[in-house]
């Protein structure tokens, strides 16, 4: 096969057996790879009602057909599983080197089953696959684990691992690779911890092949030039990272502030990408094959918050910043480093702290609940204290380790949790930006911006500017972005490549890489197929249309200050049309015709 390797690893952690299996051309074409292929195997092999932290759940690492080529910013792989934070199908995407390295070793995907009796890690070097003892690694942070495994295996190995948070099954624990890249959301790190699997380390010396290297080069140059010429994909993200969005979102009054009690933060500039570049940036970094370089190698010299590593990204700067009423960039960056070292999702961590601060401000919880910490909005040291407690599994940190929904629910007030399907929403206020609200509510893994980034047209004017305040046309827009992203995630591309290229360009790259002719229409339909398959998984897991909603705060309590003052989200105007355009019935279930059109009958258990 071209593009794909055509082979994957199936590893039973109960017995320690390793099998090498074939991916058929038909399956590859239908689901591409990454998120799509992983979801297909989850749907086929795992009961959607399974307890996510039980041995019956599976954990899949899957690269895409473009991973390992020099298609611009095509480093991505997905970790697919049933997520413990909310019980939905979870596909958590990460860049770095891991995905391409897996393919150079000769595999498109790894399926991990069962549970090891003792802590282990997986070492893959081309044809050699070993399950190794990890007793000495258990308890180590992400950088410590990465270094120790490289010493024991190969200094050029790519290491994807969990930190202590994943070991303790913090419900939003992530899987980190190359120390600074994260399969961040949905708690896939807790699934890895539940399997007693500390790390997957891989080194590959083989090749990824394409049918015509010259034609592929031409397609890559065409796509790259479009990205370079784009104001966001070109200079914007390189100069200021994703954190460039802080000031942009604040200017439209869409920067959620103090746990979404407001949508405007007057001192936002202090935590934005421009300040980051002046204050903590060492230099921009790129994932494998990346031409955008949004990554931030950073260093905090302030002795109180000293450290170095990667970040913060926009969502992180927001979650520990404006969402907690905090404008101290050094402290925010430190919180990022703690999360990276211990392996926790910064969005859910920060948003859970914000939720706790909101509960504290309203007297629902007191210092008695928080180990004596006065958890006031705006107090960066209180924020850091509880982040450390969560990382270390101490006191109030054990509550935060459940995520904001379960934490707030335990005090009788789940409505304080700013979540969709129990996953924390990211840094875009749906009251100011209507379309993104619909995307959060219908997201197949709950509140998430990288499932349908309608911020592109609604705020950034990419590829065209749309009015964020209207609901008209937004259901169709959401569907387009959701399908595009599902197919793109499955190809191995980074979402940021879409700041410059669209479905037709990615379809062209895919065709040139695989030798299989993908039309733009077919590419988008593949996205719809994957989206509907995820929907079917969630329906079988027990989710209903009642779960396709936003927190009441966003539909009832208007934004208090700033440019979007007085606005609420009007999801009721959008959701029925969304179902209709999706080809779903009023209960949010895909109709027979829809499934038949997408060729999903046989995947429907």
């Amino acid at each position: 096969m071209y593009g794909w390797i055509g082979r994957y690893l199936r590893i039973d952690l109960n017995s320690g057996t390793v099998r090498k299996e074939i991916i058929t051309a038909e399956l590859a074409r239908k689901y591409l790879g990454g998120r799509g292929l992983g979801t297909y195997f989850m749907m086929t092999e795992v009961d959607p009602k399974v307890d996510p932290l039980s041995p019956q759940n599976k954990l899949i690492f899957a690269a895409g057909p473009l991973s390992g080529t020099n298609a611009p910013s095509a480093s991505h792989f997905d970790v697919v599983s049933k997520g413990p934070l909310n019980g939905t199908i979870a596909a958590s995407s990460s860049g770095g080197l891991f995905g391409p390295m897996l393919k150079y070793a000769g595999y498109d995907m790894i399926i991990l089953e069962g549970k090891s009796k003792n802590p282990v890690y997986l070492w893959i070097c081309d044809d050699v696959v070993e399950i190794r003892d990890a007793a000495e690694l258990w308890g180590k942070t992400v950088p410590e684990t990465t270094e120790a495994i490289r010493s024991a295996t190969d200094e050029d190995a790519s290491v994807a691992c969990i930190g202590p948070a994943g070991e303790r099954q913090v419900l939003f624990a992530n899987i980190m690779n190359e120390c600074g890249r994260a399969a961040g959301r949905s708690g896939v790190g807790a699934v890895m911890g539940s399997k007693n699997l500390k790390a997957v380390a891989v080194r590959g010396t083989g090749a990824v092949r394409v049918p015509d290297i010259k034609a592929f080069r031409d397609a890559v140059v065409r796509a790259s030039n479009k990205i370079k010429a784009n104001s966001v994909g070109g200079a914007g993200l390189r100069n200021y990272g994703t954190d460039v969005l802080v000031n942009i979102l604040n200017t439209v009054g869409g920067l959620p502030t103090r746990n979404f009690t407001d949508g405007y933060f007057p001192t936002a500039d202090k935590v934005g990408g421009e300040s980051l570049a002046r204050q903590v940036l060492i230099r921009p970094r790129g994932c494998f094959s990346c031409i955008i370089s949004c990554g931030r190698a950073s260093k905090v010299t302030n002795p109180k918050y000293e450290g170095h590593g990667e970040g913060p990204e926009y969502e992180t700067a927001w979650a520990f910043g404006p969402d907690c009423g905090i404008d101290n960039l050094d402290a925010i960056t430190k919180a990022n480093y703690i999360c990276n070292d211990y392996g926790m999702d910064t969005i859910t961590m920060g948003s859970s702290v914000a939720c706790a601060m909101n509960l504290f401000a309203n007297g629902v919880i007191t210092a008695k609940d928080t180990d004596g910490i006065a958890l006031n909005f705006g107090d960066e040291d209180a924020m850091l204290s509880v982040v450390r407690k969560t990382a270390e599994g101490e006191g109030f940190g054990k509550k935060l380790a459940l995520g904001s929904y379960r934490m707030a629910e335990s005090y009788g007030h789940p409505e304080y949790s700013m979540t969709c399907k129990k996953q924390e929403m990211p840094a875009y206020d749906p009251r100011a930006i209507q379309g993104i609200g619909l995307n959060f509510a219908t997201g197949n893994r709950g509140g998430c911006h990288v499932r349908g980034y309608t911020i592109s047209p609604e705020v950034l004017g990419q590829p065209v500017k749309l009015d964020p305040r209207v609901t008209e046309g937004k259901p169709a827009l959401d569907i387009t972005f959701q399908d595009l992203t599902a197919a793109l995630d499955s190809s191995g591309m980074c979402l940021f490549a879409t700041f410059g290229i669209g479905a037709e360009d990615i379809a062209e790259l895919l065709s040139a890489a695989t030798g299989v002719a993908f039309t733009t229409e077919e590419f988008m339909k593949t996205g719809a197929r994957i989206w509907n398959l995820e929907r079917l998984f969630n329906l079988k897991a027990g989710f209903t249309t009642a779960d396709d909603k936003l927190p009441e705060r966003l539909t009832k309590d208007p934004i208090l200050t700033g440019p979007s003052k007085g606005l609420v989200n009007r999801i009721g105007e959008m959701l029925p049309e969304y179902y209709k355009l999706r080809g779903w019935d009023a209960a949010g279930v895909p109709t027979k015709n829809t499934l038949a059109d997408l060729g999903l009958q046989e995947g429907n258990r």
Partner: protein
Amino acid sequence: MTKMLMIYPDRCTGCQNCTLACSAFHDGEFRPHTSRIQVTTWEMEGFSMPTTCQQCEDAPCVAVCPTGAMHDDPMMNRVAWDQVKCIGCRMCTLACPFGAVSFETASHRILKCDLCDGKPECVAFCPAKALDYVEETDAARDRKKVVAVEFKKTFEEVN
């Protein structure tokens, strides 16, 4: 005109587009392992260092080659290699102070930068201008300018 491959590690993002472009051009496949340019990265420090053949004027690999396979190529300002004369002894690998030469038995070939015959693909695909193919006497010019700009800033502050 004598050109050289100039490396700016301070600009490198660690993306490895150079290794991808190199293997694609020379081998027709994406195989960073056999790339003639390699990148070493320190992730926690955010630093990456590309290394490749420096095309030495008095090259140790040429000096130790027993058959003359490795030879000076003044026209291209590079050290070139003749597959027919090569006996695969790997003395060049041992001698190179930069670790820039290796031999692959399976394909009976030396893996060493040949500057893509004057149009280096790694330079074409580097998104950060961390690699440049420039006239050798101008190679340090960018560095000089950076120092000059910094000096100017400081000078203006104190005056």
